[in-house]
């Protein structure tokens, strides 16, 4: 393997970086706006059509910009329902440096020693309600249903994996 020669052009590097960064530093207030990593999500768990109470729902996510993982839980109530508030965060650098936003989201249902993948989705933006624009996340999770890929938006080629169905509003 040939050793590579390095030709330094520090002025070019500086100019390109400055072209992005200089005027951005002027406006600190803009970076206060929160980033939505996981929009509010709720649902109902059933087995053979009957609501399941006391099922544990584990929500977890990985936010790639900061390599930050998060996890929280909820239990279904007597009507089989669960609810999670949105997960938001903030980052000065995320607003400053161009990158592809990525939050990998997972919801797992645990009941009687069994584990069911309810929801697996990759969010490529920081918008509130940005998973499927125009749709709130209401799930119907029938434990007897197989895990499958659900194509939600054919034009945008967006979908999720899991046993749950995403309800229409």
């Amino acid at each position, binding site marked *: 393997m040939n050793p590579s020669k390095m030709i330094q052009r520090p002025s070019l590097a500086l100019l390109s970086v400055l072209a992005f960064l200089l005027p951005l530093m002027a406006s600190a207030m803009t970076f206060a706006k929160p980033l939505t990593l996981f929009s509010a999500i709720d649902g109902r768990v059933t087995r053979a059509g009957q609501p399941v109470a006391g099922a544990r729902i584990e929500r977890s996510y*990985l936010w790639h910009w900061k390599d930050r993982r998060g996890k929280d839980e909820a239990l279904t109530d007597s009507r089989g329902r669960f609810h999670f508030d949105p997960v938001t965060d903030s980052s000065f650098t995320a607003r400053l440096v161009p990158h592809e936003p990525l939050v990998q989201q997972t919801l797992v249902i645990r009941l009687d020693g069994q584990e069911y993948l309810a929801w697996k989705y990759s969010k490529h933006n920081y918008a509130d309600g940005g998973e499927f624009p125009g749709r709130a996340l209401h799930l119907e999770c029938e434990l007897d249903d197989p895990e499958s890929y659900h194509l939600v938006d054919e034009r945008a080629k967006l979908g999720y994996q899991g046993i749950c169905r995403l309800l229409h509003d």
Partner: protein
Amino acid sequence: MNPLSTDVVSVLARDVYDVRRSDDMSLLGASVGEWRESFNSPSRLTGSSGALLRSTTGFGVIATGKGYRQGEALVTLRGTASLADGVTDAHCGLHIGPSGSPVHAGFNQTFRSLKGQLDDFFGHAGNRGIRRVHCIGHSLGGGLATLVADYCGERGLATALYTFGSPRVGLFPFSSSLTRRIGQENIYRVYHSNDPVSMVPLFPFQHVPATGQVIILPGNHTAYDFASHAMQNYVTDLSGGHWRALRGAASNWLERMDREVSRWLASSDRSSLGRYAGSAFWFLSLALLHVIKLSLELFGAGLQTLVTMGFTLLDTLVWLLQRAARLSAEIGGYLGRILAGLLSLTGRVVSGAVQVTAAALRFILQFLFTSLATQVHRALSRVHS
């Protein structure tokens, strides 16, 4: 070479980001049936990014074709997803790239961390029958895919390159030799007219293809906007499209813009340039180019003496345009219109004639040179929805 469909390419360029921290590829390409039908299960490629503290993460996938894609392979690389990747992007000194031409240092370092895996893949006994490779990437991944295409070309493989919002990778020798080797018709460069990443690093870095068609999509958002760089917007804008039609549409749009610029310069149309949305600065840049060209034809003879007087490029252009404006009422009128157009985009309405002074010219030129930065600032200060 039979290209991959727009949907397979754009969806893979988006979904490949998933492999950064895991080898779970269950969502990769799941929204496009053609992917699973024509390619075998992919393998994950790892690479390093960053500067002093380099981290190794999943950078892409590689797969072999089946059925009518037998004998083909596909490599998809991800772009910037973490701060370490951002540092890689900023490291744009020069290294010698795969085929011997100078290329972006940061991209090349990451490429070299992938290269051993490519050698293993193409050297593997079961893969000796591969004759054609498709290289795909978004953003930094587009830069890496370009280097992989260079590498594949060097190995004598028929190569197709598909990039989205890719930055520039090398200088002119790199871009012209890669274009010649793999063929301009096999290079599908897709970008929004207002995608700031596709405009860097600055000259003398140059894009691939060096000649031939590109797929420039009119920017829908105002001016330069990071939303125009988001991969999902490329997926949606290309959805269900076909390469030939997209190339044709892009060509038509560029020709139409050129004609509109000529028409606009010669008219007294005072309507806002805001109707061009993300392409307004593009429009003004084209208009200025028209005027510079015209001015050079008429008054360029005295330019050599300026060099000995120590004029910078900016000084020279100001001198040229001011002289042209003084000696030609037509050119003076055009420059006035460009200035008024620029002012209207920054929210300042101008009534009456605009004075084309040296200061005004300097303002136009500096604004257009720095407009990238200014508009990035403006884009980020809007509500990011």
